[in-house]
């Protein structure tokens, strides 16, 4: 009902809804009904601003409006809510943070259960981060090391998973004999040519995966924004740039690997 009459692009809409979400978070000590009243007033303010400007809102327009309205912290102070940095750390936040750090330690000590505990720790840390009003800095994720580690592992897996099935199979000598039964026998398993070919195949698959990823990412924009929210500080993630980088990196990697593969002539 509210946003239907306002025309703004996707980035602008994301920026505005993020701002309202932060307002809700900053005003949490107030009764829920009062928070909703305030948010409705701000929505009405936005609509009036659009009426005045009479044009489609861009992200810059929304940023300017937010600057004029004031930060969520500023607004919370105007409602007499103590600044977050002056609030005592909520016991739940602290408990979740310690629990996630403990899980990280245990996951390093016991490799068998490590991945599961790391996921549990990351979920706990992310919950703590979302509930916390203590740290509002753009680098607040640094206070949640388990989350940083989990996302780094996830990023490595997402980018390099094609190497995982290729390299172990190659190490046992089965890759080329599977792909080219007649040529595998002519190539010693421990020779440089063999491993160059293995790496080339793995790199071609990885490059193609990056190309495919760029397509998948561009169609799952909102999911990616939500997934990476702890690190983007709720700013819009430059998905288009990320796709472009992945596309070019994938194309260069696949083309180079293909060239190396052809030069190697495993056939």
């Amino acid at each position: 009902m509210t946003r239907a009459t306002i025309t703004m692009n996707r980035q602008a809409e994301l920026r505005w809804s993020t701002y309202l979400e932060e307002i809700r978070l900053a005003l949490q000590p107030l009764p829920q009904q009062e928070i909703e009243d305030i948010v409705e007033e701000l929505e009405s303010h936005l609509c009036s601003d659009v009426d005045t400007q009479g044009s489609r809102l861009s992200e810059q327009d929304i940023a300017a409006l937010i600057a004029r309205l004031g930060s969520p912290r500023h607004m919370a102070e105007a409602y007499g809510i103590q600044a977050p940095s002056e609030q005592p750390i909520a016991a739940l936040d602290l408990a979740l943070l310690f629990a996630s750090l403990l899980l990280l330690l245990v996951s390093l000590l016991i490799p068998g259960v490590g991945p599961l505990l790391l996921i549990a720790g990351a979920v706990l840390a992310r919950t703590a981060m979302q509930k916390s009003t203590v740290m509002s800095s753009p680098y607040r994720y640094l206070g949640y090391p388990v989350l940083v580690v989990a996302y780094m592992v996830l990023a490595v897996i997402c980018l390099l998973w094609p190497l995982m099935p290729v390299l172990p199979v190659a190490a046992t000598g089965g890759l080329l004999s599977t792909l080219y039964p007649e040529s595998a026998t002519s190539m010693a398993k421990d020779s440089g040519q063999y491993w160059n070919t293995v790496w080339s195949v793995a790199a071609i698959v990885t490059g193609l995966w990056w190309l495919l990823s760029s397509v998948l990412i561009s169609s799952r924009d909102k999911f990616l924004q939500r997934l990476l929210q702890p690190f983007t500080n709720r700013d819009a993630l430059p998905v288009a740039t990320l796709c472009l980088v992945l596309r070019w990196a994938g194309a260069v990697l696949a083309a180079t690997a293909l060239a190396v593969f052809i030069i190697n002539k495993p056939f």
Partner: protein
Amino acid sequence: MSASFLNNWETQVRKGLVELCILNILSRQELYGYDIVRALIESGGIVTSEGTIYPLLSRLRREGLIEATLIESDRGPARKYYRLSPRGRSTLKQMNHLWGDIAASVGESRGGNSE
């Protein structure tokens, strides 16, 4: 005088006076939030942050000095129109009287000093 002292003093003075300005604006006509913000901006920039008007309106309403009516709008969410309550009107009269006294005494304390 340090810049932080001046900033702090200015914030305190503005904070105290914005409520008086809002009540004076609403004494003339019924308005909704955005219009009040515009009126305050046009009246000489007493507002530094538009968003902080809403907490003030909310407080004035809780104090019973203003009343609000929700009116449906065909251009977005319903608009909350504010007007002065009878209690607000009598309080405003006293506030304006007090402000007159304060302004006079500040003027007197300055004497002929134009600095």
